[in-house]
């Protein structure tokens, strides 16, 4: 696995000033490109939203590999840290709460969204084709020149010297957005917050059960939730059965369990039906 990491070190001089890619980079592209296309199609056609998100993660990581192979080491790594590590993680955080078994509903709720989607997609294609078709490519200077003082330094010069205004504008937009999120989600506290000590005091003052309740189940024979636990004297503890079961009346019969213990103590089988009075009277047990 660690061998994967050796790739970037060997790659700073891939894109030569002639504009030709090296053989290694070409091989990497032809391996990664089908994977990315399949993953991108998976993003479109996956039934479960988590699978779609995972396909997107695959695309992002493969893209990062290609960035690194092209000498944009910083961009590639930051792509993984920021997009895969933080943003997709936030997406997953929400998607996971949907659950494994539920596929997304395919009922369209917005009228005509299919046509709007097609139109918008075609428009995007037109724009991209137009831009690419009319673009004029300058002669490549080679990645060595761009990365002359190491790749991060080159990027720092581009961002903080050449494009500092755009950078500041984006920065202030982001700060504004973050503040907006804070303000919109802020909720005024109407009552004073009770800390742990106050809560504990309240519990003691209220006379509630302070320790956790005993767990249900007579462990030698049962671990069912509806079977009450037994106290040291063999009496069933009502409160060990969850309250919901008790309210619904789904609790197992506690008196039957107590009776079983009595029967075992009396030397008979626990499941023996409560027949008439015992004739032999094994009172030696």
């Amino acid at each position, binding site marked *: *696995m*660690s*061998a*994967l*990491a*050796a790739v*970037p*070190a060997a790659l*700073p001089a891939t894109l030569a000033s002639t504009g030709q890619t090296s053989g290694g980079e070409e091989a990497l592209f032809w391996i990664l490109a089908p994977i990315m296309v399949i993953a991108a199609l998976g993003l479109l056609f996956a039934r*479960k939203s*988590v*699978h779609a998100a*995972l396909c997107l*993660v695959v695309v992002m*990581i493969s893209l*990062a590999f290609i960035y690194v192979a092209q000498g944009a*080491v*910083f961009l590639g*790594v*930051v792509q*993984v*840290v920021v997009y*895969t*590590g*933080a943003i997709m*993680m*936030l997406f*997953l*955080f929400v998607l*996971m*709460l949907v*659950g*494994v*078994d539920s596929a997304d509903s395919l009922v369209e709720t917005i009228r005509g969204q299919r046509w709007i989607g097609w139109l918008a997609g075609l428009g995007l294609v037109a724009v991209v084709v137009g831009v690419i078709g009319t673009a004029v490519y300058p002669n490549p200077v080679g990645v060595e020149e761009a*990365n002359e*003082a*190491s*790749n*991060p*330094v080159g990027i720092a010069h581009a961002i903080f010297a050449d494009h500092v205004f755009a950078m500041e504008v984006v920065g202030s937009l982001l700060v504004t957005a973050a503040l907006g999120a804070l303000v919109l989600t802020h909720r005024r506290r*109407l*009552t004073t917050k009770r800390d742990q000590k106050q809560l504990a005091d309240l519990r003691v003052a209220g006379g509630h059960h302070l320790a956790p309740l005993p767990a249900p189940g007579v462990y030698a*024979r*049962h671990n*069912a939730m*509806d*079977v009450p636990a037994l106290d040291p004297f063999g009496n069933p503890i009502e409160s060990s059965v969850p309250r919901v079961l008790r309210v*619904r*009346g*789904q*609790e*197992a*019969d506690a008196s*039957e*369990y107590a009776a079983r213990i009595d029967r075992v103590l009396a030397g008979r089988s626990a*499941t023996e039906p409560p027949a008439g009075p015992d004739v032999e009277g094994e009172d030696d047990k």
Partner: protein
Amino acid sequence: MLTAAVAPVTADFSQETWWISVIKAVVLVVFLLTSVLFAIWFERKVVARMQVRPGPNVHGPFGLLQSLADAMKLLFKEDMTVTAADKIVYFVAPMIAVFCSLLTFAVIPLGPVVNLFGHQTPLQLTDFPVAVLYILACASVGVYGIVLGGWASNSTYPLLGSVRSTAQVISYELAMGLSLVSVFLVAGSMSTSQIVSSQTQIWWFIPLIPAFVIYVFSMVGETNRLPFDLPEAEGELVSGYMTEYSSMKFAWFFLAEYINMLNVSAVATTLFLGGWRAPWPISAINDGMFNHGWWPVLWFLVKLWAVMFFFVWVRGSVLRFRYDQFMKLGWKVLIPAALGWLVLVALVQGMRKFWEIDRSVLFGAAGVLVVFIVITAFLPERKKPEPPPPAKPEPFDAFAGGYPVPPLPGQVLPPSPRRDRQRASVGAQAQVASSPDAPSETDPTTPEVHGG
């Protein structure tokens, strides 16, 4: 202190051949796997000593083979797959966790240039200008293993564990990244070899002690270790995201967790504790003899295991945090502190670089600031005004300002006439029901008794 970031990477890989890279990679993987076996034994032994008991001492000398026996046991256990699981993701998740954890050590410098089979090569698989960011990237992808494993199990506790893990990673990685940035600023590089070579004069944990403390907090949070092991808190979530895993798949998660501990310890060593450099009195011996050749591997391992010991020490002595306390620590303490510290470091570095202010002036200013803070700490505090006595519950005006409004906290609703009527009618029914001849309608369904 401020090194000009001209050369992207200090380590010289010019004599590297492909087979040297392969040897290094294989040695790293073997080193990590055996270190995990040792770490499990180490942890059990140290925790046992802290709890005044012997710990594993049966298999092999000092019980050293105990973790090998445990690993064998895990291998031969039944490999179960949950029926309702999302099969592919369930299977892939442990692999993601392990593979990503194995990637980090590729950029950790274990030593300076040595002679390996006639080739001069640094004791480091690779290095590039953004090596530390690469470590962060591997760590953040590795968490996908935990998150997906919990989700794919299709079970409540694992899902809760993985949701916790997501939130934990997002919040603690921020603090971790910010604390590392101050090292980048003073070292002038993000390449691990250059960060190590920038610590010739002083190890960064001394001038950057706040960043180091923040890093230590967040590295424990990042590796899901006590007191921050909330994704797998056994008292709350059985075993968190690993609950539905068994046999080898469980072992992979286990492996990933311990390799991650080694990873963050190695990062702490490299970035803050001088990397492979010998500690001060030793480094001065014989013109730095112990900083050359194979000696530095020893210092690196000593520092690595010192940090590992810290992990175990913390685990043995600190209780698990409550989840809200944990989140509060991350967002309200660590991240603001890291941001503030980063601004301070950036200011100081900027002053030194652009205004060429002398170091002694800066130290003097810092001293004055510290004295000022200490003096203000001794000033008597102004007494806070007594909080007003709690007001009596106000009568509730349901039409305050002419509109129907809900009651505010502290306001009491007037007695509801409808409830009184309901109570009265229920009371009358109960009286009828309790008469001896009436058939009992409140009899619950027949209680079930389990056989056996």
